[in-house]
């Protein structure tokens, strides 16, 4: 039963790595911070599944700290980014 959870945690990690491609390809910094946000929530999910797989209750406290850090990161980025001038490559082409 635990091997299934370890495999699901690996799949979640894979989805984070796939989503990080947006960090390279995003035209604006806002797209890059979206990928970092996905990685943040993905971290929370991976640790939750690992806490079930390895039966470690202490990982839940680590997850709380990660969730708070993700929120603080996002607010800090918005504060810095919203006062910066618009990026030159800001048209919406793919």
């Amino acid at each position, binding site marked *: *039963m635990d091997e299934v959870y370890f495999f699901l945690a690996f799949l979640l990690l894979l989805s984070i790595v*796939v989503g990080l*491609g947006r960090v390279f390809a995003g035209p604006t910094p806002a797209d890059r911070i979206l990928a970092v946000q996905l990685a943040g929530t993905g971290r929370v999910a991976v640790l939750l599944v690992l806490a079930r797989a390895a039966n470690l209750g202490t990982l839940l406290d680590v997850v709380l700290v990660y969730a708070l850090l993700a*929120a603080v990161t996002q607010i800090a980025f918005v504060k810095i980014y919203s006062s910066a001038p618009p990026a030159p490559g800001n048209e*919406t082409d793919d």
Partner: protein
Amino acid sequence: MISDWFGIACTVVGVVFFFGGSIGLLRFPDFYTRLHALTKADNLGLGFVVLAGMVQADSWAVALKLLLIWFLVLVSSSTAAHLMAKSELSKGTPPWAKP
């Protein structure tokens, strides 16, 4: 026994939502649509993983701690999504329209 299968099923659904969120982040044409994909992965994907954890939890304290984690991520990610969308809109980025 049945809680084991329910836990695995809920985690699989959560993984599916996370994959949908990250693939949507790659494939969508515009910042606002990517934000939409991201928040679905945040809320629903994490919600299903937390539901699986709550069903499999040993005690009520662990289950309530999981619920608290999910509420924290919900509130912070939805606030952050609104902030990002508002700051991008105030910079004048037009939403993607079908050409």
